[in-house]
């Protein structure tokens, strides 16, 4: 199975996205399709043996939208796009292809000499992008990462430019039409030339609008109808087309009974088009702004890098830096790629990636993140991740994917929109029939002397037929569900972008939806609530010396990477003890270590380990152990050859702001639970320091997932916060899994939300942001449906019997454009979200 994301131009609203989904799903071999009008993309999962990528693109293009790019993701095959520099002729392209095809893990290669582009499909388990680039380099050419996003930026700019030109043209012609139509009102006839009121002149001015800026509605409708799709284009095309044609007939046959020269059909058609095209232009501009977070991230990339090659310092394009290169960064320069510091000391401003406002000190051995700013000193570092593997590239990719994944609320809105268009046409027909057969005569429209709002059409001059058609057109125009289509994706786009600014990466609208319903937060202890770097605090010896107890404990723990083991080993080294190597070593998760040294068997662990091996524990030992645990320390029993001889205790410190974060979570009305493998006493001691009442202790790593399940079975919506790699099953099981302190390893993190910084306050920020975003979506949907719910009956004439008020098609177009813009502007308010300070 292959999953591919296609970038598509021309999508306006939810019904466009639905049309694309329907068209693509018709092809055999398609597993799922997820289209998003706001991001202008569609993610398709398909079986390559049954349907080709080309067929999918053709299916999408046939609906009237254009595929402008694609990106393949996951499912055992990745795609890498590169530019290959140095190819002088087509044979070079053949050579590169052959070299790549001979490489292990390469599934497909396409190298085009003319464009210098190479597309490589590969198995990520067998080869990495760095390996692919090495193959190309070994063949004698220079591989560079392609900026795929440039194509999308260009397409967006083009869309904005087209709609701007359309807007200018439509208003340039509409204004004289309006002047000519309203010429006989007030004092205007003295300043507006007579010829402008001539119906043939109005026809001449209206035609370029319909054939130019208005053409997009007709072509979009035709392409949709060919495949049985109805969308907002059809509503608009029907309305403007009907008005224009009525104008033509009325001009050519003024005595035919369509109202004569006084009825301004051309003005209706022109203004309808002008308002709707203006709405499209504003939509295109705001689409660009709502995805500003991604644009901002993309602009962060450094353009040049200073590397040491063959002993010399050379300045090269940042995208040509290779893994392993030694990179130099001077004060005030941007760090070009991810790496590890090999020399130097400096403060680095990482706020653009992690949201951390205070510069972070970097010294030898510390990681640096590409696109961050080196502040004070010179840094020399070894590149570890370049191109699409850098933290920045992973963040951008994650956000882009998140903005394509639809939450349930949006899927519901899409379904409603899809049926809505049909319902609108039925209501429009019913409106026409009502006024034609009954309303016009019953409410005495002909003698009422009123007129449509914002229109020069005088009711007494139009027949029942014309009146009923105009009412029908108004219903069509005012019903456009564009605002409904914008309501959810615009908010998700801004919400996820806001999260990214603060180092919170939300993997999709579903995660947002679940996060706002969370009522229970489970915090892992070690590494989440605590720093995860315990230190040795106590050594107690019985029938032995403290030095021996510590030395042998350190010997047993030397092979372990567990933080507790590191604390014991460091403690022993600090005391100047010599630590030998154990002959055998066996770590038993959740219990301890068993090691062998010079025919002695060492046990170091908890009560369970001792019980499993039949080792008796004295009352004194148990008493000392309880005392240490009540102080919040983790006490391990040391036993040699089956006899308990001592205790070794370590303690971990709470992270900064852990108390504040727990307090805030409780203020939000959430139940906060701590989960740990520690014994109950130690766990409760730590929990009470941080303000947590409920503790799940002595939980083996493999059982954390079950604890989450138990809480979910009680009907709770659970957030689990922990290490994204080690706690992966529990994070995945939770309704919202939050991986904290991921640093640059974003792609490897499990869970639905990734917190880049190691700051517990981000949990609060993430939950508050999700609540704000969902609230914004609900506001938007309310207003969007309200516009339609209120607008349709008014457009159909509901206010006429009591208030003699009628909405003209022009006013309907203005209100419709306003509804889309107001929903987008409401979403923009989400940009003011700031993390709470405490």
């Amino acid at each position, binding site marked *: 199975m292959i999953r591919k994301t296609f970038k598509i131009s021309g999508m306006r609203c939810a019904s466009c996205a639905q049309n694309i989904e329907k068209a693509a799903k018709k092809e055999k071999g398609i597993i799922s399709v997820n289209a998003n009008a706001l991001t202008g993309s569609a993610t398709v999962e398909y079986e390559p043996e049954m349907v080709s990528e080309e067929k999918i693109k053709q299916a999408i293009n046939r609906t009237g939208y254009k595929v402008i790019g694609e990106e393949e993701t996951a499912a055992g095959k990745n795609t890498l796009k590169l530019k290959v520099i140095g190819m002088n002729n087509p044979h070079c392209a053949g050579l590169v292809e052959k070299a790549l095809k001979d490489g292990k893990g390469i599934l497909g290669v396409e190298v085009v000499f003319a464009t210098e582009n190479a597309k490589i499909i590969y198995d990520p388990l067998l080869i990495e992008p760095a390996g692919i680039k090495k193959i190309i380099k070994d063949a004698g050419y220079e591989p560079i990462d392609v900026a795929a996003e440039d194509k999308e930026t260009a397409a967006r700019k083009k869309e904005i430019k087209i709609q701007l030109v359309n807007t200018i043209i439509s208003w340039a012609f509409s204004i004289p039409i309006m002047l000519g139509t309203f010429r006989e009102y007030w004092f205007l006839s003295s300043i507006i030339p007579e010829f402008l009121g001539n119906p043939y002149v109005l026809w001449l001015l209206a035609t370029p609008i319909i054939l130019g800026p208005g053409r997009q509605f007709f072509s979009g409708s035709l392409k949709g109808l060919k495949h*049985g799709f109805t969308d907002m284009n059809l509503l608009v095309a*029907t309305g403007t087309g*009907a008005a224009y044609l009525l104008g033509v007939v009325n001009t050519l046959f003024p005595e035919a009974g369509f109202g004569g020269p006084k009825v301004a059909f051309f003005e209706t058609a022109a203004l309808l088009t002008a308002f709707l095209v203006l709405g499209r232009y504003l939509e295109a501009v705001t689409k660009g702004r709502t995805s500003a977070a991604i644009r901002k991230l993309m602009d962060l990339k450094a353009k040049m890098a200073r590397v040491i090659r063959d002993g010399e310092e050379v300045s090269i394009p940042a995208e040509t830096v290779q893994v392993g290169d030694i990179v130099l960064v001077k004060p005030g320069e941007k760090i070009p790629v991810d790496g590890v510091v090999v020399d130097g000391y400096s403060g680095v401003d990482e706020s653009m990636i992690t949201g951390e406002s205070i510069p972070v000190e970097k010294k030898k051995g510390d990681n640096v993140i590409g696109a961050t700013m080196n502040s004070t000193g010179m840094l020399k570092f070894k590149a570890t991740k370049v191109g699409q593997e850098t933290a920045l590239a992973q963040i951008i990719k994650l956000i882009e994917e998140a903005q394509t994944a639809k939450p349930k609320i949006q899927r519901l809105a899409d379904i409603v929109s899809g049926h809505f268009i049909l319902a609108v*046409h039925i209501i429009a027909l019913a409106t026409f*029939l009502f006024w034609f*057969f009954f309303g016009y005569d019953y409410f005495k429209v002909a003698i009422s002397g009123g007129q449509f709002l914002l229109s020069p059409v005088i009711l007494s001059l139009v*027949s029942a*037929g014309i009146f009923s058609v105009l009412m029908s057109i108004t219903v069509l125009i005012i019903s456009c569900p564009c605002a409904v289509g914008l309501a959810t994706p615009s908010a998700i786009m801004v919400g996820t972008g806001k999260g990214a600014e603060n180092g919170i990466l939300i993997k999709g609208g579903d995660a947002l939806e679940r996060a706002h319903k969370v009522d229970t937060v489970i915090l892992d202890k070690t590494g989440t609530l605590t720093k995860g770097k315990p230190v040795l605090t106590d050594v107690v010896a019985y029938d032995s010396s403290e030095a021996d107890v510590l030395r042998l404990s350190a010997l047993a723990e030397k092979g372990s990477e567990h933080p507790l083991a590191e604390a014991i080993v460091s403690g022993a080294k600090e005391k100047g003890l010599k630590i030998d190597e154990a002959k055998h070593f066996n770590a038993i998760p959740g219990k301890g270590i068993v090691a062998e040294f010079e025919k002695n068997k060492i046990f170091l662990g908890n009560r369970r380990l001792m019980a499993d091996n039949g080792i008796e524990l004295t009352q004194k030992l148990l008493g000392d152990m309880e005392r240490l645990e009540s102080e919040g320390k983790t006490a391990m029993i040391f036993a040699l050859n089956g006899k308990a001889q001592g205790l070794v205790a370590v303690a971990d410190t709470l992270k900064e702001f852990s108390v504040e974060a727990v307090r805030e979570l409780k203020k939000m009305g959430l139940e906060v639970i701590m989960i740990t493998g520690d014994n109950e006493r130690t766990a409760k001691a730590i929990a009470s320091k941080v303000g947590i009442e409920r503790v799940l202790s002595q939980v083996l790593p493999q059982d954390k997932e079950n604890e989450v399940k138990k809480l979910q079975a009680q009907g709770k919506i659970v957030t689990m916060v922990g290490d994204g790699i080690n706690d992966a099953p529990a994070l995945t099981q939770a309704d919202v899994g939050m991986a904290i302190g991921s640093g640059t390893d974003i792609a490897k993190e499990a869970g639905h939300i990734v917190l880049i910084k190691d700051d517990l306050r981000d949990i609060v920020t993430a939950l508050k942001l999700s609540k704000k975003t969902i609230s914004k979506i609900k506001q938007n949907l309310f207003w969007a449906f309200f516009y339609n719910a209120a607008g349709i009956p008014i457009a159909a004439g509901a206010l006429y019997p009591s208030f003699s008020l009628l909405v003209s098609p022009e006013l309907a177009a203005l209100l419709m454009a306003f509804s889309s813009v107001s929903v987008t502007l409401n979403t923009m308010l989400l940009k003011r979200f700031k993390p709470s300070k405490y």
Partner: protein
Amino acid sequence: MKDALIYVSISVISTVLFYLGAAAIKAPGSDILLGIIWVFFLSLIISASIVPRLFKKEIKN
């Protein structure tokens, strides 16, 4: 082709019904003509949207 025939047939039926109704109330000829075009067009769009959905439901059942 078969689908198009169904849509057009439904639209024609709707239009004929409209004509009969309009003639019964003695509506002016221009209004009747306008109404015929408008009803035909809207009925065509409605039937083109409803019929495929009905067929899909039948296949599912």
